[in-house]
């Protein structure tokens, strides 16, 4: 479960105040809104990358407002993917596991499992400059899922992809929930995409979150 209770925050001159939102456990919610409406800022606040001025963030019922990003146990796929330029795909998938001190065999098993799930097997030795948009996106997704987080935050994960790759990725995102219990918040500005992948579509408009009924 992801919940924002009356959250206020400031990022430079940009401010949001009194935002509340809830994604039920195991749910898949799409959050829409215009460019500059604060969707990315909200995701960063859930990750713990941005301090709140007031309000609380709760994950799986626990108040995590004061916890560091590393303690929140969530998978985050940022808009620009932010792949680590000096690492191979294999190292991306193993990164969070090595940080957690998994033993070598467990890391290798998990990495090959992820590579199979995401179709990354032929690419494991490549570095980011040698990946296409869709491949890079799957690596970013694999990196976020590697340590089996309960919560997944996606920031416009499909915006840079062509039509066909986008369709494949949407199928993949939907299938993820059958593999493991996962609560997902998916930020997008594409209504079709939102309807296709999510159980519920929310809209962030003028600092308020509303459920979308009908069209935008």
């Amino acid at each position, binding site marked *: 479960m992801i919940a924002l209770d009356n959250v206020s925050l400031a990022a430079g001159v940009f401010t949001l105040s009194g935002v509340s939102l809830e994604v039920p456990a195991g749910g898949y919610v799409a959050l829409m809104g215009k460019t500059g409406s604060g969707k990315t800022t909200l995701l960063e606040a859930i*990750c713990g*990358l941005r301090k709140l001025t007031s309000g609380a963030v709760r994950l799986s019922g626990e108040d995590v407002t004061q916890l*560091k990003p*590393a303690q929140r146990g969530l998978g985050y796929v940022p808009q620009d993917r*932010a792949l*680590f330029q000096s690492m191979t795909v294999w190292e991306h998938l193993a990164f969070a596991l090595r*940080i*957690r001190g998994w033993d070598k065999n467990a890391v290798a098993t998990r990495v090959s499992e992820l590579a199979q799930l995401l179709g990354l097997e032929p690419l494991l030795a490549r570095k980011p400059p040698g990946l296409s948009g869709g491949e890079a996106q799957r690596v970013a997704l694999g990196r976020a899922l*590697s340590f089996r987080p309960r919560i997944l935050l996606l920031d416009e994960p499909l915006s840079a992809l062509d039509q066909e790759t986008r369709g494949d990725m949407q199928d993949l995102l939907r299938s993820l929930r059958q593999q493991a219990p996962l609560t997902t918040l998916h930020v997008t500005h594409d209504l079709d995409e939102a309807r296709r992948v999510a159980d519920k579509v929310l809209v962030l408009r003028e600092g308020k979150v509303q459920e979308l009924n009908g069209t935008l």
Partner: protein
Amino acid sequence: MDNRRVLSDVPFWACLALLGAIYLVLIVAMLWAQASFTTPGHLWSALSSPEIRYSVQLSLLSCSLTTILSLWVAVPLGYLLARWDDGNIRRTLDKLATPIDRLSARWYLRPLRVCSALVRLLNPKTWIDALLDIPIMLPPLVIGLALLILMQTPLGRWFENNVMGVTFTVPSIILAQFMVACAFAVRTMRVAFEQIPPREEAVALTLGCSRAQAFWMVVLPEARRGILTAATLAWARSLGEFGPILVFSGATRMRTEVLPTTVYLELSIGNIEAAVAVSLLMVFAAVTVLIVLRHYGSDSSFGKALAR
């Protein structure tokens, strides 16, 4: 269709090429003149002189030490400058100040608020930036003189008496080289870190890293080429350092004589052959370091071969 007559592009490119070529020709002519002036015999006799051999060794040693010291300072300082934001510091200070403010309303009992106001007023980042330009902009001789005077202050004298002698000894050479080389290394590292998106560190934090882990595992490996460039620059600057060393370390043979000092000393006694031979050695050293580090730092096949 537009019937206007469009001028040929040839004169434009020709002018650019001509102006650029003047400089390139001068560089090559300069190196050629120097190389043709000397003979293997001159080089050999210069290298067989114990004074010159000492100065070669001292130059290589001091430049390498200076490079290592510069990197130790340039990596952390460059990272801080690349990620520092006055606004964030102000907000942090204000946040810490809030509980204290409830205790007292008098301004002089609100040191954090005063600090925050000072940050807003003074923009410390701009000042630190300007401060770092000083070693680059100052005439080198002035740096030597300033170091000499610094060692005459009570603090400097205490250091010389109780820790180690600096003025007119080998450590003074390293300090003089470090003052200039480090400024260049810091600039280079700052640019290198600024090119790495902060979001990569943000993702590393969500994956379970502390700030320090994100720095060591994500940022530093990506800054590898920047570090090599900074090292090359620092090494080359130190090799050519002359003015500050002359003033601060003196030009004593077999003691504080580095390669530029040798050129100066040999010229002053009219031994032009030795001076030219030694300058050629410096040209070789500089070019070798440049080529090796450039290729080592790039992903070229030569670099990969070296890395193996």
